């Protein structure tokens, strides 16, 4: 107890319900059948009985090691191509709450596509990371972005350390630091590159990285590029993390048993495929106890979590100084592109000199920076209205409504009940395609993922709730999902409440 107040952590309500066993059995049988048919079709293609529509080597190269039809492309050509029309759909409007999709058909089972020329208008967008509804087409509130475009142009044509630091960047960095309540921040042109270029600048050989099982590819790439030893702890499992920390502190480096130079814990704010939120209070307690550093990637949680959208640190009511490196991206809630790293002033000054991105990569484009400046001012209320905070609250309301209704219908939904990323489990490979296609027929666009991006029996549809969705939009989507769930028998949950 401190100051007479009891020290309670915010209760974390999350669920990762397991489906009944027969679902798993059918899923594996589905993949096995697909594999057997894949071998059969490969046999037919090799012997010329079936025409091969994939790329093929030239006749002179037939005896070389196969380039296109080898085993590594087996899954792609036999399973992925058959349901490929659910991905890479070209859209032709801004990713607002409703968008337009170009209609495309395939005459040869998804080997080639052609556009009919028609555009499917007003499709409800449940897939874009448009959490606060700021990813809309040009309107009068974006006037400043147009002025900056006219004044500065689009390209910067230099890196941060040469001639590419603009006053817009300084303004943006000061604003980001003020928004996050930290000492300083630095922005980079690309969100993925923020992770992969800056982790190597922070840790190196002789350091230890403890990274969560479900971390994003950019964090994994940055960790691998740094040359540090990487140990993976089970997703959000503080006991496992504590065991790894204790082993690291007690036994030191593998052969020499010297102490590790640095121990860095890599976590994300919201995990985009699971919808779970990091257990921040427990992890900060562990980091303080074992003197490790914490790096948190708030790509999905900045702007969406917390009463005023300051991210997962505010969501738990904690001090931003507890986290050593706060990283985030501007492409999700702010409707722009790029990433930032924020923290203490000496950390950010070190990154200005030593980050690979600052030395070699072009800096952020001026209209992009202005869009972020405008979004942050909107969120903080510096434009004179309270609409920013209202949008964050609307997002929270929408999230809770959507998740509650899905759970009531009986679907298995993963994650924390307050995260705007909602994965709905589909499990079977055939249902992935059926779900996405039927929803498109009803003019709703969703993102589905299957194996090998997810574990074998973990195929899911991922919804991103947005503050721009009205209650009617969500009801339309929920009715459609209800109907399709009955048709495809997706309501596996055994905890139905209604």
């Amino acid at each position: 107890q401190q100051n007479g107040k009891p020290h309670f952590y915010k209760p974390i309500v999350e669920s990762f319900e397991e489906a009944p066993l027969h679902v798993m059995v059918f899923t594996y049988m589905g993949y096995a059948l697909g594999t057997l048919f894949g071998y059969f079709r490969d046999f037919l293609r090799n012997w010329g009985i079936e025409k091969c529509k994939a790329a093929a080597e030239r006749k002179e190269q037939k005896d070389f090691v196969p380039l296109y039809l080898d085993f590594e492309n087996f899954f792609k050509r036999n399973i992925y191509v058959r349901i490929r029309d659910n991905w890479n759909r070209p859209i032709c409007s801004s990713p607002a709450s409703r968008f337009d999709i170009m209609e495309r058909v395939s005459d040869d089972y998804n080997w080639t596509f052609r556009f009919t020329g028609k555009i499917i208008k007003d499709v409800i967008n449940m897939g874009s990371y448009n959490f606060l509804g700021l990813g809309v087409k040009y309107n009068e509130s974006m006037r400043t972005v147009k002025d900056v475009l006219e004044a500065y142009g689009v390209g910067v044509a230099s890196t941060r350390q040469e001639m590419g630091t603009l006053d817009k960047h300084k303004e943006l960095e000061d604003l980001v630091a003020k928004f996050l309540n930290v000492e300083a921040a630095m922005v980079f042109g690309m969100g993925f590159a923020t992770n992969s270029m800056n982790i190597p600048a922070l840790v190196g050989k002789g350091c230890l990285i403890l990274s969560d099982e479900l971390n994003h590819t950019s964090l994994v790439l940055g960790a691998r590029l740094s040359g540090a030893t990487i140990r993976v702890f089970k997703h959000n499992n503080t006991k496992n993390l504590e065991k790894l920390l204790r082993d690291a502190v007690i036994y030191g480096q593998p052969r020499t048993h010297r102490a590790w130079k640095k121990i860095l814990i890599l976590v994300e704010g919201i995990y985009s495929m699971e919808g779970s939120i990091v257990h921040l209070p427990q992890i900060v307690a562990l980091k303080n106890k074992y003197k490790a550093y914490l790096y948190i990637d708030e790509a999905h949680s900045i702007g969406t979590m917390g009463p005023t959208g300051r991210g997962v640190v505010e969501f738990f009511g904690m001090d931003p100084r507890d986290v050593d490196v706060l990283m985030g991206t501007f492409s999700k809630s702010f409707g722009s592109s790029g990433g930032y790293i924020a923290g203490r002033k000496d950390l950010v000054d070190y990154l200005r000199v030593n980050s690979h991105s600052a030395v070699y990569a072009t800096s952020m484009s001026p209209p992009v920076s202005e869009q972020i400046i405008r979004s942050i001012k909107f969120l903080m209320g510096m434009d004179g209205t309270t609409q920013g905070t209202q949008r964050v609250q609307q997002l929270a309301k929408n999230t809770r409504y959507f998740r509650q209704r899905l759970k009531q219908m009986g679907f298995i939904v993963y994650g924390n009940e307050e995260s705007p990323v909602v994965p709905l489990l589909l499990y079977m490979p055939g249902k992935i395609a059926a779900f996405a296609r039927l929803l498109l027929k009803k003019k709703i666009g969703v993102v589905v993922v299957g194996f090998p991006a997810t574990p074998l029996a973990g195929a899911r549809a991922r919804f991103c709730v947005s503050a721009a969705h009205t209650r009617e939009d969500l009801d339309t989507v929920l009715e459609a999902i209800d109907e399709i769930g009955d048709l495809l028998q997706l309501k596996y949950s055994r905890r139905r409440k209604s």
Partner: protein
Amino acid sequence: MNVGVAHSEVNPNTRVMNSRGMWLTYALGVGLLHIVLLSIPFFSVPVAWTLTNIIHNLGMYVFLHAVKGTPFETPDQGKARLLTHWEQLDYGVQFTSSRKFFTISPIILVASGVLNSSKRPSTMHQLVLEQRRMKNTKDTRYFLASFYTKYDPTHFILNTASLLSVLIPKMPQLHGVRIFGINKY
């Protein structure tokens, strides 16, 4: 369609056999194969058992010990391209529970053929008594299976040969070994 977008597992093939329900699916698949073979009126019961064993072991050999690499591109620049699925399981750690399960299951299945060749008397009553005594060990099924094939030497040779073809590659000493350079690249 990229490996590891939602998890940091470099090669999903290593974890596939540990997934929840995989062993049950495998057992059900073998059971289904056996029932299909038993339903064909031309095959007597011993022939059906031997055919189940042979087809199961052939399938297991092809998919676990002959096919190399992964059916998708992994982010580790193809470290597993020359390894069979068995060698990829659990990143090469020996004696994990999946490996033990898949080593013991053909033995259980083929035990009918193995015990075929012994000259032990086989009255129904004796076998049932032995079965009751060893209720909780795997020998139960060993004897159960042995009851059905009536100990014919041809069956014995066929069953044992196919069992050996599927057991020898699983030995840890043969991890990564390619005899006479067969299946090396």
